């Protein structure tokens, strides 16, 4: 059924269609509307046989999920940013224990400086946590991928994180096609846990493992993720058969194979890029996009296959490893190094959209133009106010007690008009 609703409501309704049994939550912008809506669905009786609990922290929330999932419940929660970091220990634990929890991450920057707006710093902070990490471009995909996430998690007995850009998707009201219960039931069978705390068949979960077997256990986690590369594709196909839509999968190519210049990106920015390349292609540019829908597992083969004809690759990402650079870019580098068909491709790493900075078509277009002229640097911070940075560096050089950086820059940009205090 077509609906014009916010991304958060769409996801909440999709999750409800998956018949979750336990949902703990803790509020944090920008995911809060999802769990608020689920709360209403449970409290009003629209979602039955489900225990919903507003707990005292994200750490508790993920821990609650761990207990619930280990006891055999289909379990869901959502968080973002600082909340993800606060639950971090439990995030690793959930995957280490192999518990098929589904969590929405309403992607948001990480402080300090505190910032509630969108980027991918939170998702990237857990890139080694052992979770499956899927990214969505639109609200339709968001709701579709959540349905697939449960099936995927339960097939692998691994937790799945659906990454959805905060505000840009969560708060955007768009048209979505909401499936009906019968369709979802057809796609997603009841949860049969691989391991379960059961008094009829007692089991110890979470034993200590020493050097003698730790490597094997960790290797198995890696092995599971590699299995997911196949299963994700299979499930996307199965999904398309039942729901009639292409949603999910490992990667999505928009003219990537037939273009000289190819953007690689994840999440909602792909939508803006699509709008851009439609313009550019009509102007005669050879430009495409490769959208990464699965970040973990990292679909190196699929990526390289899509990029094999590209001359210039612009890896656009909304986060970076401070002191190193683009995370996705370095992973793409690594993948292309291994892939024999790709030789001599130019890869530029573009960091943009940090802390909610608007990603405009115009700025993206400039990147393409520069790339076309062979002028695009290996590392670009898109729309960086270089002068502001230079002035702050000077202040720091001039004065040991130059004060807090964030506040200095705000003052410099005139956002804060207070006069200097000393």
């Amino acid at each position, binding site marked *: 059924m077509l609906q014009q609703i916010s991304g958060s409501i769409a996801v909440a309704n999709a999750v409800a269609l998956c018949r979750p049994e336990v949902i703990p939550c803790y509020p944090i912008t920008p995911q809060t509307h999802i769990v608020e809506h689920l709360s209403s669905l449970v409290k009003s009786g629209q979602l039955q046989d489900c225990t919903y609990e507003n707990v005292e922290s994200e750490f508790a929330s993920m821990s609650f999920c761990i207990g619930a999932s280990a006891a055999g419940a289909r379990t869901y929660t959502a968080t973002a940013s600082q909340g993800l970091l606060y639950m971090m220990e439990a995030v690793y634990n959930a995957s280490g*224990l*192999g518990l098929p929890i589904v969590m929405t991450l309403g992607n948001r920057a990480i402080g300090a400086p505190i910032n509630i707006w969108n980027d991918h710093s939170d998702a990237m902070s857990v890139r080694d946590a052992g979770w499956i990490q899927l990214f969505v471009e639109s609200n339709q995909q968001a709701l579709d991928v959540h349905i697939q996430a449960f099936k995927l998690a339960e097939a692998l007995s691994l937790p799945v994180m659906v990454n959805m850009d905060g505000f840009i998707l969560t708060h955007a009201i768009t048209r979505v096609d909401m499936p009906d219960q019968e369709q979802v039931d057809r796609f997603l069978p009841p949860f049969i846990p*691989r391991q379960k705390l059961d008094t009829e068949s007692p089991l110890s979960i979470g*034993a200590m493992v020493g050097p003698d077997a730790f490597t094997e*256990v960790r290797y*198995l986690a890696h092995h*599971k993720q590699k*299995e997911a590369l196949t299963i994700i594709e299979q499930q996307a196909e199965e999904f398309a058969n039942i729901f009639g839509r292409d949603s999910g999968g490992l990667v999505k190519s928009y003219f990537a194979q037939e273009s000289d210049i190819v953007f690689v990106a994840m999440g909602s920015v792909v939508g803006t890029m699509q709008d851009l390349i439609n313009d550019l292609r009509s102007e005669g540019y050879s430009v495409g996009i490769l959208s990464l829908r699965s970040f973990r597992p990292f679909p190196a083969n699929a990526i390289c296959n899509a990029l094999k004809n590209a001359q210039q690759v612009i890896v656009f990402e909304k986060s970076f490893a401070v002191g190193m650079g683009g995370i996705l870019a370095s992973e793409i580098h690594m993948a292309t190094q291994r892939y024999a068909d790709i030789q001599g491709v130019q890869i530029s790493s573009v960091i943009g959209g940090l802390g909610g900075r608007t990603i405009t078509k115009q700025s993206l277009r400039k990147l393409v133009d520069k790339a076309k002229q062979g002028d695009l640097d290996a590392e670009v911070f898109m729309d960086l106010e270089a002068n502001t940075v230079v002035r702050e560096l000077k202040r720091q050089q001039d004065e040991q007690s130059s004060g807090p950086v964030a506040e200095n820059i705000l003052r410099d940009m005139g956002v804060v008009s207070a006069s200097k205090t000393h």
Partner: protein
Amino acid sequence: MTVQHKPFAITLDVGSSHLNKTGSWRSMRPVYVDRLPPCNKACPSGENIQGWLSLAEEKDYQGAWRLLTRDNPFPAVMGRVCYHPCENTCNRGQLDVPVGINSVERFIGEQGLTHNWQFHAGEDTGKKVMVIGAGPAGLAAAYHLRRLGHQVTIFDAAEKPGGMMRYGIPKYRLPREKLNAEIYRIEQMGVTLVLNHAIDNIERSQQEGNFDAVVVAIGAQKSTHIDFSGQSSIPILDALSVLRAIEMEKRNPLIGRVVVYGGGNSAMDVARTAIRMGAQDVTVISRQEEAHMSAHPFEIKEALEEGAQLLCLRAITEINGQVITLERLKTSEEHHSGHSHGVATGELETISADVVVLAIGQVLNDDCLSATPKIVVKNHTIEVNNMMQTGQDGIFAIGDAVPSQRSVTTALGHGKKVARAIHAWLNGKTYQPAPQNEVVTLDKMEPWYYSDAPRTVQPHLESMRRKNGFAEVLGDLDQDHATYEARRCMSCGNCFECDNCYGICPDNAITKLGSGKGFEFKYDYCKGCGMCEAECPCGAIAMVTEDI
């Protein structure tokens, strides 16, 4: 790598911790032991007190009676007259008050009489044993011999059996129907009693009767006498003949002012009997201070309660007419530890009396031994080896006639011992008593686990009632109280299946074998922490070093 069907967190076949044999950590191992409870150790009859108390706790009175009478055929008697050294050593005494073993024994004995439980003779061996003396030692010897299957005939010069039990212990302490019943029960086993029959030549009687062995259990029937200086005008009697006369209901010699000389239990018996017989005034004169008198404190206490006077640290030096001269003594400083007699001070005082009873001891009457020269008498007692055998092969001697502590209980113990010795001797062997286990002291136990409660006090007759007759001074425990009292036993040194070791082992390294079967250590898992030993309430576990 094949696909795992279990999630990787629990793959690679988690096994049971049973695979991990933690027993290898151990340097000490616990073992179950039976230690000797101090009561058992102290019992001159060698009763397994802890054992029969345990059965009594379960209200298995017949079982308790059977176990008790394995060592002592007179529970109803001993439950009254035993001075219960067991209670003095009872570990419980260090916590609150000792278990009233004697009163439970009496209760058990009463159960035996009430239900008319009988003894059973052993399978006939064809051997015949002659027992001289139907006192406690002789009767006990006869009983044990009969249990072992030997034919026994007892000869006694008196008209009734029982010896000192009848002629030395007043009725108020031992009602005669109880005594008679328990003696009769021994007779019922097939023991022949020949009364009013003194033996004057042991060897001849043995040959005439074709006896394979002889037990001399003739007691110490001759009273010690002192000749006081002075011209006494009053009767000077001995305790034994006084008590015998009263038992025989002959003329009462205890009239007027009675002075009893002596500090032992016989002195108390005479004094208390005198009060009951209506004596005007009863004074006990003891050479020891009260604490060192050989009489049991409760006897002294009860005598005083009944109205007897007690003059301690005094010696009779002279009796003139009715006036007795006493010299005050003082405690010797070198000998303040016990049996010392006082040292003369030269201070004199006098009292008047109508009769003096000497209760200063008895010695062996060796008249019947003169025909058997190999039986050596030394210091008024018959010399015996550690198997109670005299110098004459096949002739054994026991009880007050041999060097030992003179008590009914000791006599009973002798009876048991001699029976075993004779049994072995008749089979051409030497009796080897089983080695005694280590005695368990309170420091080897953990008494916290026992509830504390005072001993059930046997209902005392009011002292006024006591004075006026020979009614029994101590009453019976009822069943509830007997059970209650029995359950105060801490089962020192012997597992009573409290499940503590089983329950508190942090390594579940103990198997409970089921009721009555005890427990077993699983040494595969026992880490040797020693908690079971530390927390065994009764000290029935020991830690021993592992052989490495």
